[in-house]
């Protein structure tokens, strides 16, 4: 039987943020639908409403013209709406079978038979009796999917399913999804990855700031058109103007940087030498795990290496700790926003206060000057267009893009002479990426320098004045970026050599 799912005038308002604003959409079985939007556009809120996790302030959901009351996840299940969340809803310490049996109504024997049928039908190979914590992300996702399939769903909603998958696993997922679709299951696919929409989905609805801004056939769309709809303005093609003249002063100079570790998970660094000029962006490319982590930690002062010389603004700083380096006008933006750059449980203004400099006046005689910190935090939030003005909000509620903006804003408090970032746009959507790129370019325009360690070659080519490649702890020669092509970088990143 054909399935018809209709969402009518759904609204959900959180304090300080309209998550869904009068959203109406219609879906019919036999097609795969994409729900596309930036982080924080309201996609997740909408699917949480559809799966009964939260209830809307307004609006209705109809399945085959029947008005659904979705007050709990149980209601969604009863109405045959299946949901695979971005963060898995599995019990890590229970076995796969226990995870699947927890809400089953049949006895264990017949359940096992049914699960094995599904495993066979879709070519999944999962051991049912191992604890879930031993599975890979792709396998965990399959367990979630099996859990939905056991209830023979009419609707299957996938929330950002590929964010944790390898390329291989993504391909497998797409094959399964197409099979489900052919069997008459209505599939709603939530994502911010444009290429996936084009390769997998039939129809695409774009959301922006809680509203549906466009519904169209994917065959009529291209990456650029979708990106523009998603972000809401034409994305300017930025490539930095290279404005470095040869005779500028070297502001930062590293000599004989060596690092040896006994830890098999760390990479040794072998005799790195490089320098950064005033107003310049030095890009360091490489496949992750080639020593970038160690390099970043040494540059930021988390690791002190003997016999290394780091000259910054004519002063030897190799023995200084991160705080001292910051006070000497360096700034750092680590790769891991949640655990290294910010404390998710702290409020926004508290995170801002973590860089407690003498110059910032955040602390007086050992006491916290909350008013001053809050004022400053407000300024960061508006200057860096973070989508909230509530400095009391816990940082964990910020999306990745907004958190990165906040971190950059905090790091730039002191107007640093050198900013070192490591994968600053990792996992962000196009809108946030372009904002952060513009910010980094602006820093160079103001005659301040940056070191950009990144695994994204496109980003490096766009932002760097000179580029070097790190491979197995050694640095290639440093090249002016106008001489560098993606192909050249690819060869160097794979350990080859060019002449």
């Amino acid at each position: 039987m054909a399935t018809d799912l209709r969402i009518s005038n759904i609204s959900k308002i959180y304090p300080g943020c309209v998550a869904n604003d009068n959203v109406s959409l219609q879906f019919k079985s036999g097609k795969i639908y994409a729900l596309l939007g930036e982080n924080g556009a309201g996609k997740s809120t909408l699917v949480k409403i559809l799966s009964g996790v939260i209830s809307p302030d307004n609006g209705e959901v109809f399945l085959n013209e029947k008005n659904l009351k979705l007050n709990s996840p149980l209601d969604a299940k009863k109405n045959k709406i299946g949901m695979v969340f971005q963060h898995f809803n599995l019990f890590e310490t229970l076995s796969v079978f226990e995870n699947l049996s927890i809400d089953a109504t049949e006895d264990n024997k017949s359940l096992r038979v049914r699960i094995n049928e599904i495993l066979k039908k879709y070519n999944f190979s999962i051991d049912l009796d191992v604890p879930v914590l031993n599975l890979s992300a792709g396998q965990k996702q399959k367990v979630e999917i099996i859990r939905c399939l056991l209830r023979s769903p009419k609707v299957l909603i996938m929330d950002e399913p590929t964010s944790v998958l390898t390329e291989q696993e993504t391909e497998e997922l797409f094959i399964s999804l197409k099979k489900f679709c052919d069997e008459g299951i209505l599939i709603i696919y939530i994502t911010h990855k444009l290429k996936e929409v084009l390769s997998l989905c039939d129809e695409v609805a774009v959301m922006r700031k809680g509203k549906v801004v466009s519904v169209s056939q994917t065959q009529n769309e291209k990456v650029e058109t979708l990106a523009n709809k998603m972000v809401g303005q034409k994305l300017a093609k930025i490539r930095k103007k290279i404005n470095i003249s040869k005779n500028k002063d070297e502001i930062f100079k590293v000599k004989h940087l060596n690092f040896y570790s006994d830890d098999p998970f760390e990479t040794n660094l072998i005799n790195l030498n490089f320098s950064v000029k005033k107003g310049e962006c030095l890009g360091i490319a490489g496949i992750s795990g080639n020593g970038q982590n160690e390099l970043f930690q040494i540059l930021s002062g988390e690791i002190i290496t003997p016999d290394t010389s780091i000259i910054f603004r004519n002063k030897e700083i190799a023995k200084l700790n991160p705080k001292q380096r910051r006070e000497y006008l360096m700034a750092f933006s680590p790769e891991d926003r949640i655990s290294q750059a910010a404390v998710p449980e702290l409020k926004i203004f508290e995170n801002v206060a973590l860089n407690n400099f003498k110059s910032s006046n955040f602390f007086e005689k050992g006491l916290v000057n909350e008013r001053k910190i809050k004022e400053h935090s407000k300024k960061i939030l508006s200057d860096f267009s973070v989508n909230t003005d509530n400095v009391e909000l816990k940082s964990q509620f910020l999306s990745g893009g907004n958190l990165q903006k906040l971190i950059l804003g905090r790091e730039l408090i002191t107007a640093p002479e050198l900013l070192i970032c490591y994968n600053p746009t990792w996992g962000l959507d196009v809108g946030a990426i372009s904002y952060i790129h513009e910010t980094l370019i602006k820093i160079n325009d103001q005659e301040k320098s940056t070191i950009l360690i990144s695994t994204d070659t496109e980003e490096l080519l766009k932002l760097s004045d000179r580029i070097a490649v790190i491979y197995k702890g050694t640095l290639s020669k440093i090249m002016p970026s106008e001489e560098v092509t993606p192909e050249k970088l690819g060869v160097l990143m794979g350990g080859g050599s060019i002449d």
Partner: protein
Amino acid sequence: MSLDISFIGILIGSIMASSVPLILAASGELITERSGVLNLGVEGMMIIGAISGFALMVITDNLFIAIVGSMLSGVIISLIFGFLTQSLLTNHVATGLALTIFGIGLSAMLGKNFVGIPGKEFPVLFSSLRESIPFFGPILFGQSIVLYFAFVLPFLTNYFLKKTKLGLVVRAVGDSPVSASNQGINVILVRYCCILYGGAMCGLAGAYLSLIYTPQWIENMTAGRGWIALALVVFATWSPIKVLIGALIFGGITILQLHMQAIGFRIPVQFLSALPYLMTIIVLVVISRDSRKIKLNTPTSLGRIFYKEK
């Protein structure tokens, strides 16, 4: 000391009797913790169970009412904990500590008029077999029904957690309340039930002390056994069978070191008194050192406050 076989039998019997309150309280707390709730109020719930059991016995002269009443009083006081932590989302640790302090104070107040009243003899089962069979008689027979229940309980608990649907739900809630809630499980309800069950078992453990083990009311008569029970649960890595082993070791060494003190071993008394604590921890740490099993048995969400998204 005559080491004849019947003496050893009696010794083992008394070791079993002394470990009963630990087994009961720890088994109850184990279920509570498996659902992700850390209730540090075990000592408080036990002492409330002890006084209410004894008081009801004196007032009604009915041991059955006394036992049931002690469990009910454990339920009622744990309901306070449940309401505070599950409905008002207070911190588990602070609330549990408050519960213990409250329980000790309340029991002392309620028990004022019951000090010095002699207890009543608690009926024992199979007392004729106790005398007629050497060695095994004093171990297996002539004990109260509560003792038999206590020694079956860890196995029942194990079966409940591993084999039943409800046990699976309890473990799931303890593992990830958010996931459980998204699966349509009423997390708050499950946790309330586990808290109340824990309360009932602690109440019974207290009543065992004041009605059976040393039939009288003495202020603060639980003497830290609630804390031992709590520690047992953790060091037994949330496994009911290991709780049983731990409780027996603790009871055993407590009794043995008393005998050693009586005989006059040339070991400092302080060291002997500390021995049960030390040995229990060492043995439990040694038998549960498989880190993979620890991870699988530990309730991941233990002590964390859960609230439902609206």
